[in-house]
């Protein structure tokens, strides 16, 4: 038993729903109690989907247990097929149904429906959402792509072609990443055969084998299916996820190599390299960042943070246990030890200990960072309604790099503005309340003091007031912590500068 307050991932059947909801012509019959229908609102409210996800729940009740839950499943599956007429029926259990062991796959097959039935077994007491999405996608790919032999499909002549694998419903910027990646492939002259799961039908999946190779956007979702395709159709897959300028360049090179073409010069360069070199960005140098998210986004963000924004990565972690090895390896490259955790309290603890200048995390870390008064940008699922902006806002490709620059730098103080504020802070008309305009009034809130155990000498208090107000809270906190740790009862001007020296790493 594990105590959970907030979770990074839902149960595995929610992963299956993300695949089903992304596709066309698939209907998911889920053996589950009524409360599990809450999952619909993830799609209709968070993603603002105008369609209900294609899921029918059996909604069995206590009085059905021991009696006829199997019959109920069959009746529900039949009803769903008659009503929705999908090309394929996905069937499975949620956590509760897993315990009553009704075998949805066998029951649905026994109905003799004229469409393929794809059972997905998702161990709910062991696995989580991303695993569920990966397993479901893999089962669908096997069921449909596998129905044709490896060699009976002539590959598209002339133009090299690929499949794009991974984008799902409720994915973090999947919608926009897909547009960027399509454009990149187009510039390279690579045709897109099938995109899946997003927008694909079971019929489309049968054509997967026709492509020369696979582009894997989100290994958490598509890695397993891509490995199967590699084995069965000798379709190699990309390993680089094009998040950031460098990774995008590497990705283009990787695609070109797989397609057997020359990579053309980058025609659509990002503004990030110049913005990062422009003088205003000098103040970004060495800002200490803590990175946490799913494995793909966390690893990519750490690279961008260090190589493209000149930050120092002081912490890197993921909740994707399945990818712990990859993240550990990346963390070693940054000289830190990876944090593999799905308890947000562990993550909070590390943030509190490291006291970074910026957190790149999930909505969970956004809350944690807010509590600790640290700027934060969101880089990964779990998603929130804000992660489906009306505007185009990818993470991948050149435009994705532009978005990263804007969204990561914005929470930090603007460079020149920081100096001006410092210069004018004593002007009466400027006043202490003045905050950078883009931060609104938010920075005004004073940070709580560490405790009453330490006092401030009058001259030290006086000196503290000379520190620009927008860093004063932090200076006060750091100094008090410094004093506390050293058993200094009264903070003098000396203590203040000792602390400053100590924290100025």
């Amino acid at each position: 038993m594990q105590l959970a307050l907030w979770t990074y991932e839902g149960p595995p059947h929610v992963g299956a729903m993300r695949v089903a909801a992304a596709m066309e012509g698939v209907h998911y019959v889920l053996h589950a109690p009524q409360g599990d229908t809450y999952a619909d609102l993830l799609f209709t409210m968070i993603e603002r989907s105008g369609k209900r996800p294609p899921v029918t729940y059996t909604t069995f009740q206590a009085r059905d247990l021991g009696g006829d839950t199997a019959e109920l499943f069959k009746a529900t599956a039949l009803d769903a097929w008659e009503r929705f007429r999908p090309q394929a029926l996905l069937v499975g259990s949620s956590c509760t149904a897993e315990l009553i062991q009704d075998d949805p796959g066998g029951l649905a097959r026994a109905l003799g429906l004229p469409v393929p039935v794809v059972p997905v077994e998702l161990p709910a007491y062991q696995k989580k959402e991303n695993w569920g999405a990966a397993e479901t996608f893999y089962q669908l790919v096997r069921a449909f792509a596998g129905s044709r032999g490896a060699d009976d499909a002539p590959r598209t002549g002339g133009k090299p072609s690929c499949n794009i694998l991974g984008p799902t419903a409720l994915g973090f910027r999947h919608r926009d990443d897909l547009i960027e990646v399509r454009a990149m492939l187009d510039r390279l002259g690579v045709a897109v055969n099938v995109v899946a799961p997003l927008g694909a039908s079971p019929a489309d999946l049968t054509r997967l084998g026709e492509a020369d190779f696979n582009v894997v956007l989100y290994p958490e979702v598509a890695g397993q299916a891509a490995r199967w395709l590699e084995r069965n159709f000798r379709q190699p897959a990309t390993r680089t996820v094009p998040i950031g300028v460098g990774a995008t360049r590497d990705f283009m090179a990787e695609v070109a190599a797989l397609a057997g073409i020359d990579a053309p010069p980058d025609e659509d360069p990002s503004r990030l390299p110049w913005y990062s070199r422009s003088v205003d960005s000098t103040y970004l140098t060495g800002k200490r960042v803590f990175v946490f998210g799913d494995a793909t986004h966390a690893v990519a963000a750490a690279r961008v943070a260090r190589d493209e924004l000149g930050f120092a990565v002081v912490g890197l972690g993921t909740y994707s246990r399945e990818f712990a090895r990859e993240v550990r390896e990346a963390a070693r490259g940054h000289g830190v030890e990876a944090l593999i955790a799905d308890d947000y309290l562990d993550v909070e603890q590390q943030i509190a200990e490291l006291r970074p200048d910026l957190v790149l995390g999930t909505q969970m870390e956004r809350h944690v960072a807010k509590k600790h008064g640290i700027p934060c940008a969101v880089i990964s699922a779990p998603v929130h309604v804000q992660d489906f902006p009306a505007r185009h806002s990818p993470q991948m490709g050149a435009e994705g790099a532009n978005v990263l620059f804007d969204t990561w730098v914005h929470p930090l103080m603007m460079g020149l503005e920081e100096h001006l504020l410092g210069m004018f802070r004593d002007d009466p008309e400027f006043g202490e309340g003045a905050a950078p305009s883009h931060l609104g009034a938010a920075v005004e809130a004073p940070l709580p003091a560490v405790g009453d155990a330490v006092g401030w000498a009058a001259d030290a208090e006086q000196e503290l007031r000379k520190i620009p107000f927008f860093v004063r809270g932090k200076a006060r906190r750091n100094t008090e912590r410094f004093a506390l740790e050293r058993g200094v009862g009264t903070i003098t001007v000396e203590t203040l500068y000792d602390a400053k020296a100590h924290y100025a790493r």
Partner: protein
Amino acid sequence: MSAAATALRAPGAERPVLRERGQREVFCGLTGIVWLHRKMRDAFFLVVGSRTCAHLLQSAAGVMIFAEPRFATAIIDERDLAGMADANAELDRVVARLLERRPDIGLLFLVGSCPSEVIKLDLARAAKRLDRTASPGVRVLHYSGSGIETTFTQGEDACLAALVPEMPAEAPEAPRSLLVVGALAEVVEDQMRRVFAALGIGPVRFLPPRLAAELPPVGPRTDFLLAQPFLAETARVLEERGATRIGAPFPLGAEGTTLWLRAAADAWGVPPARFREATAAGEKRAREAVGRHRAALAGQRVFFFPDSQLEIPMARFLARELGMEPIEVGTPYLHRQHLAEELELLPAGTALSEGQHVERQLDRCRAAKPDLVVCGLGLANPLEAEGIATKWSIELVFTPVQGYDQAGDLAALFTRPLDRRARLRV
């Protein structure tokens, strides 16, 4: 899944009820934790369940109300199921860790879920055990919020019913008292306290109390008024403890609030003149506030999907005070006795349905082309996308809507979606 349209006679109203079986698109009782934990500030809710239960709570709480919430899930894992770990020992360990972290907890609810019930984890026994062994000063109780036993608001019913045996017995010579039952916003409670004081009714107490440590007494000299329509089990156990239910419509809208107050006043023998004096101003304010929405809502046809069991009182309010026409009023469960007074007031010809087959109900809804649909969050945007205006029913549970001074706000909840559509030119 047969189309079982059973004609039942609701008491006091000659109306058939369509009873349906099929997919229910309703939350489970765990959801009640979202408002109950804010109501009782010394209580903590520990769901013993699965990752799904934790995810439901997190999703229903919407924006993750952060800080450390006063609820959590003890997620059952493989080891508990395979018998590799003794689930009871595991639960004890989790509770010990929790109480250590949160010394502010005065009352801990172990909340049962579908998985805990299917594996027959005996939370009643666990609660008894932990009540003895957990830190001194921490009470441990249990109830079920599982989706196989409860829908949405029935979780509150189960929670309050679990509190009833803990209520102290009223002193033998205690004066007659009134208990208002059902979680209400504090602002609403305070208004009600003032009206009851003006009526000379008292002492008045509330269940749930603001602090679980301050449970009100109960006994044969206690009358109780339900403030919410979904409290079947709580009412039953209160009656077992000797309390008497005062039947009334629910305090929604000007009329509903007056009738609710009058039921108490009549039971307490308050003279009519005093009743008018104590309520006239509030009722007038409420009527005026509601009246401002009448033009927008009168004649509009409204369709309710089952959700909170508040549907029938809401439909009555919309029909009688705003001139709306309810075409179908769905409820997850129809408690005929507690709703007898409401059913009397509902316009004849209003179709009622109980239970749900969501697809067939959607068919009926589309065919009826209502002007406004009251439904859950899973259905709202899809219906909007089809061009049908909706009001999320969950807001009716989370917003203070009871009493005179909230009647206008309640009406506004229904006006807003229509107003919005009228404004938009995109």
